């Protein structure tokens, strides 16, 4: 009797798995198009430009996941180690190294503590307009109870700036292809 229930549940599970495969495959291309559109919309609010072309990055910083041209500036997708897991941000940097926008993309930090880095506007707005390196405890106030996560965000911002300014050679100065 108990095995029967397991078998019935197993059939239900198998059917659901097939449906998920089919739905995911069927919506894949639509999802990819929508993602590009949504991303360009978001970029437009961070650093307005006519287009956002992805540029090759050949620097040494393994945390730099992607770089997009936004006029004279750049929008950089940067990953850094947080307290629980990695934190991924989009950081818009103007040609002179000014931070123009930040959009958290992946934050898996502790709920109620480090997790606040993704939606605490007071914390994130501290970085906007900064033209120099940011350091928690100096020109940036950490979130209460989330020092590690706050420092991770600051590290990510500095790494993104360094891609544009090339000032921090230890974190990985960018090497643009000729003609960039």
């Amino acid at each position: 009797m108990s095995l029967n229930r397991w078998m019935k549940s197993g059939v239900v599970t198998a059917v659901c798995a097939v449906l998920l495969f089919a739905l995911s495959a069927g919506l894949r291309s639509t999802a990819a198009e929508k993602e590009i559109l949504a991303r360009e919309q978001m970029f437009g609010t961070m650093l307005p430009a006519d287009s956002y072309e992805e540029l090759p990055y050949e620097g040494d910083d393994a945390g730099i996941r992607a770089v997009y041209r936004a006029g004279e500036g750049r929008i950089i997708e940067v990953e850094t180690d947080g307290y629980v897991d990695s934190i991924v941000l989009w950081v818009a940097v103007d040609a002179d190294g000014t931070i123009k926008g930040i959009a958290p993309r992946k934050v898996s930090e502790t709920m109620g503590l480090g997790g606040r880095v993704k939606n605490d506007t007071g914390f994130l707005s501290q970085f906007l307009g900064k033209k120099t390196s940011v350091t928690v405890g100096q020109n940036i106030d950490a979130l209460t109870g989330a020092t590690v996560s706050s420092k991770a965000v600051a590290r990510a911002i500095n790494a993104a700036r360094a891609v544009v300014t090339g000032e921090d050679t230890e974190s990985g100065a960018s090497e643009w292809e000729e003609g960039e």
Partner: protein
Amino acid sequence: MSKKSGLHIQTCLAAVLGAYCLIGILLRVIAPLVMYPEPDLPMMTAISLVAMLIEAFTGREKFHNPLLCAVFSFLTFGLFLWGAGFVSGIRAAALTGLFGCLVFVVTGLMFDGMAQRAEAVKGTKGALLVNAFVIYLASQVLSGLI
């Protein structure tokens, strides 16, 4: 063995995990920039706990065969997360399934102990919710330590 009238634990797991995966697929189309929680340790713990709570509130079995729980949870986590595109490739799916199975079995062991005590005393099923939440918080802490 007493006759069971509630939902089977495997059905509950498939339903909860299926809902999580379905929402993830749909959000990729409707709102691609939404930060949907990834299937990490806390998320898998939460999914397991919700499934166990549903089973507990609908009529819990007194005994869960650990081997069958392990096998079915392995298949469920692996296939569903692969099918929904959270992992790609059979190897990643197998590893994810293994991880999910481990989380489900360990969470189940902790939950079973609480559920047995709750069954022994009337009016304490609400305590299961609180305890489940504490287990979830513990999984977050563990995730940070690993």
